[in-house]
């Protein structure tokens, strides 16, 4: 392509690139801050969340099956 076009392409790439970098990292700042505040707020209950392996396990097995069946249902209904 002619040089003019090439340069404008370059400028294009720069605007697009720096724009994306800033938008993306800004998003990351927001998400991270929210995440951290949530963890710090509810982090205290963590011990409570921990269950006896047994109970925990049963729960998870249930969850596992439940989540996946739900997922499948949701998916099939979409089709």
């Amino acid at each position, binding site marked *: 392509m002619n040089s003019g076009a090439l340069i404008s392409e370059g400028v294009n790439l720069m605007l697009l690139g720096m724009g994306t970098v800033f938008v993306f990292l800004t998003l990351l700042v927001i998400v991270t801050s929210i995440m951290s505040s949530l963890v710090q707020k509810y982090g205290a209950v963590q011990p409570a969340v921990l269950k006896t392996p047994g109970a925990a*396990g049963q729960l998870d097995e249930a969850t596992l099956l439940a989540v996946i069946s739900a*997922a*499948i249902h*949701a*998916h099939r209904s979409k089709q």
Partner: protein
Amino acid sequence: MRSLLQLFRDSGLYQLQAGQLVMVLVGLLLIFLAIRKKFEPLLLLPIGMGAILVNIPGAGFLAEPVYDAAGHIESPGGLLFYIYEAGIATGMFPLVIFMGVGALTDFGPLLANPRTLFLGAAAQFGIFTTVIGAILLSDIGLMDFSLADAAAIGIIGGADGPTAIFVSTRLAPDLLGAIAVAAYSYMALVPLIQPPIMKALTTLEERRIRMDQLRPVSQREKIIFPLSLLVLVALFLPTAAPLLGMFCFGNLMKESGVVERLSDTAQNALINITTIFLGLGVGSKLSSDAFLNVETLGILVLGILAFGIGTASGVLMAKLMNRFSSMQINPLIGAAGVSAVPMAARVANKVGLEANSQNFLLMHAMGPNVAGVIGSAVAAGVMISYLG
């Protein structure tokens, strides 16, 4: 402008479909179970990550490479494409891992009490009843499994990851993802699945049976055993030779004591590297079309069935053997015959201690435990020979 559009078209949001979103959530669930619940994290963490990566629209992790006429790479393939094709489709990774498992296995307890091999044999009953179950499910039109599919699903009952993955690559590649997830999830759930069955099938007296201290086993026996096993495989079941051959090789490296540096690498660097890539590669089979269908539910249900029946038949076999032998076996160790090394053996020990706080069954349970590994590899050989 054009370029912004381009970027937006490339963006996940634009391309994302419900199925992929769901699979990303499934991947996150597996990672959650691996980290928080310690569900076989060595496998489920990489598998979950692979599931997430492969379902990122436009990331091209499964892209196939394009070659020009001269055979040079024009556009390179995706990471997971290479991992899957080179390591899993070829069967290399499961075999290398099986070698490492062999190098980590101690056949001492089995050699001290060879009869426990029968327990490892009985526990494979879960595999084959599950095959029938899968066939019936497609017979009543609920699902659609071929005989090969059914066999691959049954092997979940082997409670042995590499074996299940190896058989799936041979008999039912499309089900690989679901089968591997089921196999490892249920191996992690052994402490929940087995005890009720064990208790239901045994009396308190039986659970209290004391077993005599195991005799010490000489290093020479430990060296000759893998070689004997290998020769038997060579003579009678060559289709099981890839799995059991590598298993014996790994074990021989360990027991021979003359190649410590190789044995050490097989147990660490090599098995770890292979596990990372195996997990990612297995996860790459968790695409929405392959996983989000009713067959997956069937696999999950059949898988737990297989575990349960395997556990039961192991326990019942032990009770049967007690009928015909003076040397009593605590039937709880029969449950360890499903393998799921070493979790199932620990479970047998735990349930035994509940019945008698002085009765330590762990070492006794290790025999059927490793026997179960051999048993399911043999079952795998039969299936491959019958259907391959």
